[in-house]
């Protein structure tokens, strides 16, 4: 599975760094490093609902506060 986090200007200001860090830590904690690929991308053109995160083809809106929830509901169960 590939999870792509937007690191464009707008999402950066909305906390994409914290989202990346949280997801990165959770992936390691659950020993999913080989199964979930975490990547960055510049602007996805969807800044209003940032931080934009794409799980394979699907778009999600995540904030630093909801990053853990996103991981537990949208990443763990799908694997």
């Amino acid at each position, binding site marked *: 599975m590939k999870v792509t*986090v937007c*690191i*464009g*200007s*707008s999402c*950066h*200001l909305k906390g*994409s*760094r914290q989202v*990346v*860090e949280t997801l*990165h830590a959770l992936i390691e904690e659950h020993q999913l490093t080989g199964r979930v690929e*975490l*990547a*960055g*991308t*510049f*602007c996805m*053109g969807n*800044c*209003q609902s940032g931080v934009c995160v794409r799980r394979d083809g699907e778009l999600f809106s995540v904030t630093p506060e909801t990053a853990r929830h996103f991981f537990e509901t949208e990443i763990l169960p799908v694997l």
Partner: protein
Amino acid sequence: MNKLCADIGWRSMNKWGEELCGDHVEIVENDSATTVVLADGLGSGVKANILSTLTAKIISTMISQDMELEECVKTVISTLPVCAVRGVAYCTFTIIRITNSEEAEIIQYDNPQVILLRDGHGVDYPVTEMNIEGKTILRSRVKLREGDVFIAMSDGCIHAGVGMELNFGWERKDIVEFMEPMSVTDFTAKTLNTILLDECNRLYGGQPGDDTTACTVRIRERKPMNLLMGPPADRDDCNRMMSLFFAKGGKHIVCGGTTSSIAAEYLGKPVVPDLEFSDPEIPPTATIEGVDLVTEGVITMSHVLTYAQDYLADNALYTKWSYGQDGASRIAQLLFEEATDINFFVGRAINPAHQNPALPINFSIKMRIVDQLAECLEKMGKKVKVSYF
């Protein structure tokens, strides 16, 4: 004209407790020559400030208009106001005039002799003594080589530490020895000069006993640099903008998310973003094959502007950006240190996502950053050209 150019940096420290500096540096550039004048007025404070400013202004203006040296010195001597206390009008000066990036003419009157560092060593150069209006003037001509470093100083430099750290101050040969290893690095003239003055300040124990000024001239190769930021106002202009940008010689920097995807499309290569946040405040960089550096846009550039303004002031953030691996630091390294000629390609498209009152970024901020940055770079002595699309 050859491929060389002169990179110039200077700074003064005031005598401890003085509001004004009694040393003055004047730099005049015209088509074929760059003239640097460092003048040190008698005494300190207001009087010295007026003397040195007058001297430097008169000499630099006259020399840059191709007046004879004798004429300039005579004018200075007959124009300077006479000090009521000491009964003399006295101001020492050093002139370095670089012609066509081929030859340096050095004219010195009573300042510490200009230091020439070549291949990491202090070098003696031929000096001819002249007598003008009873004053002994030293004159030299030096054929330039890439990497040559000239350092002009006021006597505050060689007196640093007298009776404090050192018995007899810091002699010229000590300064040569101190600067020799620095001269072979890639440090800019401004950085070399800062290193020297910081050492003087240290020897003075932070309280300079005299006005202390140094001016460093480094002969280096011209290096063009191109920076692309923002998509063009008219999307149909993308190809024209990209082909002009990539046709330029030198390194290429692309700033901005949308901008980098346009560049990537033009080159037919993918954008590969990096997730490494080496500075938490600055978004990560990316790579595109064929582009030297790819960064985020407005946040990164506003940091670059901060570094540029600081560089022109007291250069306090130098250690932060000179070693940093984040986008802003790397742009700063390329623009401030490596480049001599900078071409900005600025797209005027308005990013709808940024026109959100909740965000501290918008179109006018972006344009202002470019304007201010270009101004700072010009003050650093770079040739800057901005093209809008």
